[in-house]
């Protein structure tokens, strides 16, 4: 007695047998070129999307509210960067100056510069803070102490911030549409390749320096792309894997030193 299932199986077998082998060969031979072609088109298109289109879509472009001339200000003030970006009495870092600091000099416009006049009329006179777009701002979950780096480790501002003090105008601020942080954090190079220490400021970049300072062996950390997870683990659990500590000063070794 044959059931319905059995019948279905029999039918399937019959159909397979009805397909003669030679017809398959013919098809295979005939489309080999186009398969390769489509493969190449796929590769090229996706490479283009990944390398060219994606970065364009990922970042939006914004203009700073005021075109700021760092070079001019650095020339005018006495104490370099620290004249405006200073440490407060309690040791915390002031970061981008508040209006109150600017007003010290710019209560009224000091010259003819249209940007300065705009600054005075739109912000100083109205008592409004300037909504600066901060290229160096890390995501909120990152804790960073300027005091530990500048005061204790005596690092130069340039090491991380680059020669921003020499710029004569504000560049376009590119904001990552997903994370909301500046493009400068990942770096302008979408592949994450950097030439200068200040070109990007991701965890690996911090790690690079910390590893160097702590164990004087940079090599163990792998490149940012391939080694992302390995590096993360090495930094998160330094003792277990390589005996390294995350904080040079405190010799602490927990994620929460930097990740709040």
């Amino acid at each position, binding site marked *: 007695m044959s059931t319905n299932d059995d019948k279905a199986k029999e039918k399937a077998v019959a159909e397979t047998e009805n397909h003669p082998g030679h017809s398959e060969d013919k098809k295979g031979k005939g*489309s080999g070129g*186009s*398969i*390769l*072609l*489509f*493969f*190449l*088109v*796929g*590769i*090229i*298109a*996706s*490479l283009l*999307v*990944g*390398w060219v289109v*994606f*970065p364009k879509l*990922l970042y939006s472009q914004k203009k700073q509210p005021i075109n700021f001339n760092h070079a001019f200000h650095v020339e005018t003030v006495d104490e370099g960067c620290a004249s405006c970006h200073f440490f*407060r009495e*309690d040791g*915390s870092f*002031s*970061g981008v100056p*508040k209006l109150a600091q600017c007003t010290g000099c710019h209560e009224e416009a000091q010259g003819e510069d249209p940007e300065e006049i705009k600054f005075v009329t739109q912000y100083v006179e109205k008592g409004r803070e300037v909504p600066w777009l901060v290229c160096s701002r890390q*995501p*909120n*979950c990152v804790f960073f102490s300027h005091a530990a780096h500048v005061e204790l480790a005596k690092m130069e501002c340039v090491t991380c911030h680059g020669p921003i003090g020499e710029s004569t105008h504000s560049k376009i601020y590119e904001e*990552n549409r*997903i*994370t*909301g*942080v500046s493009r400068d954090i*990942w770096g302008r190079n*979408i*592949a*994450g390749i950097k030439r200068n220490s200040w070109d990007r400021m*991701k965890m690996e970049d911090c790690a690079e320096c910390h590893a160097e300072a702590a164990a004087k062996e940079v090599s163990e950390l792998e490149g940012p*792309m391939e080694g*992302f997870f390995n590096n993360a683990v090495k930094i998160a659990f330094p003792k277990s894997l390589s005996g390294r500590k995350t904080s040079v000063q405190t010799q602490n070794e927990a994620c929460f030193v930097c990740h*709040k």
Partner: protein
Amino acid sequence: MKMDRRSFLSFVIGGAAGTTLSPLPWKLTDDLAIWSQNWPWTPVPEKGEVSYANTTCMLCPGGCGITVRKVGDRAVKIEGTKGHPVNNGGICILGLSGLQLLYGPTRVPSPLRRTGERGENRWQKVSWDEALAWVAEKLADLRGKRLSHTVACISGTDGGTVPRLMERFLTAFGSPNFIRTPSMRDSYEMTLHLMQGAQASIGFDIENADFIVSFGSGILEGWGSPVRMFRANSVWKENGVKVVQIEPRLSNTAAKSDKWLPIHPGTEGALALGLAHVILKESLYRKDFVGTHTSGFDRWSKEVVEEWTPEQVETVTGIDKSTIVDLAKSFANAKKPLAICGRGKGNTAGGIGEFMAVHSLNALMGNINRKGGVWAVPGSDHIHWPEVEMDAVASAGMQQTRIDGAGTDKFMHARHLLHRVPEMINAGDPSLVQALFVLDANPYYTLSDKALLKKAWAKIPFILSFSSFMDETAQNADLILPNHMYLERYEDVPYAEGFNKPFIGLAKPVVSPQFDTLHTGDAILRLAKALGDPVEKAFPWEDYEGCLDDTFGDQWEELQEIGYRVESDFEPGSRNTAFETASRKFEFIPEESKDAAKNVMVKAEGEEPAYPLVLIPYDSPRLASGFIGDPPFMIKTVPDTVLKENDLLVEVHPKTAQSLGISEGKPAVLKTPKGEARVRVHLFEGIMPGLVAMPTGLGHQAYDGYLAGKGINFNDLIGPVEDEVSGLDAAWGIRAKLSRV
């Protein structure tokens, strides 16, 4: 070229291969990881400069100095101000949670006008101009009809510039009905007035006392100035000062005291007289003081000796007579003994007989206006505004009897009798209150006898709340004109409850107003302006800050800088000048209240056998039970033996529970002559058998989702019991029935 299935697949594979060789997947993974850690609702610490601003807490009558830690413009933490004369660096859990009131969801964001039925919580935003014009129109109409006296204001405090502006407004407008919410302040003020002839606040030199007998005062529950009391308690512990706590329930205070004497509730006054009896009998009182500075002693002592023997007191209070004798002796033999009263946090008035009995104990020991004793602290004298020039309407209105009857022949010595107002409103037709203003108070929640209150409420045609928060009163008002909350405004705090030195704290704005609110001081000034003369000319100030500046004169700058003013070298009047009674002496039996001693006990409402048990309230520092409700942080600290999910637990002695057949955690119905509620039962050996104890401060209907609907409001189950002598609400509990369900 046709794309068949295979070509398509190879295209996809090529695409996949290409994508892996591009930064796209890696970059996206990284970005998504960052995105997921920075969702907008994730709390992020503020960035910016850290600063500290000093101000005064206004969440209870404690008058604590607080220091607000700010990062940039955001207030992030409240601490007690170090070196402050009242709280010296300490803070209570409510003061600590103030930021949740500032930034939390209970704020009233702008003037709101009711659109639905009262209490429906449907509102329309209106502009300040529109709202004030509306109020002014209503007021002008009432004044035009010669009904100015039907405007009343319920205020949580008096004496400071804002309540005084309100009082002044009512005077110039023509209404005597400025009514302060009840508290032990009422009874202590009256005690000082009757026995010492003083218009003063009570002050306790607690830090210097060496033996404390507390007749139910919640020293660790929030009585007096709470933080000061916590600190004093620690100092007492260090110095070996003995504390005897007398109350029917093992409260925090009782648990931390040296001796807890459970007593039948409502009989504390009798115990005080029982102690007096022993002291008199054994001649342990301070003869120097009693002999020269008191009057009526012979008559009073005769009465006490005859009527309050330890045997009788034992029968009444349930405390055995040897304990009474021992306690009286230890009290009298201490160098600086101090007796205090006012139940729990002192949020209710209480019977004058009881207060006078306790105060007499202090007088027997001569510790009136003396180191470690009870001081009469003169009220703050910073307000010297010119007399209000009343027109005919105002004078006529001011001559009307107050709606609460305070100051009439019957209640000659009472200043405020808010509990009488609902009844009076219900008795009149039309309502004797045509417009009600509510300032720093939440009477819809705190007044007892809800049925009476709701009926009266419905009869008031216009209710205006100045609350910063959506409390029950605001929710049941017609218009809300939200005040800046205390961290956003200037206001003088004219006393710290129970503090023994003249003190004024200054609340200062530590952050700018977060919403479209207006200082009530300014709202009053603008209303006066809108009404025109003669009301307007009673307010010669541009704005409230101008008024403060003018009021404090050359002290204003210093007050702003320091944040408080205290007479640290204040000495209470020398005994020859301290008593302003007719006899210039301390009166054991003031002429005006001869019956007070007979009235030391007030009966609870309700009769047996319908109500076999007695329900008493208990206060807890974790439950704000005044005009402010618990902020979320505080309600989280309430243990599940008090509040389990939304169910309130009442405390019952295991024996009582057994006789009722109720076990731990089981639901029950609690019924009193005033109401009924479903509760759960918590068995507790620290409550005397025959009693049911219920926490205060729960059962809110308004505020936010963290508080509304949790537990039962004790005030829904009790009604006022009027003290015949003083008119004050002397209710301390109510008879009740608890049945299993």
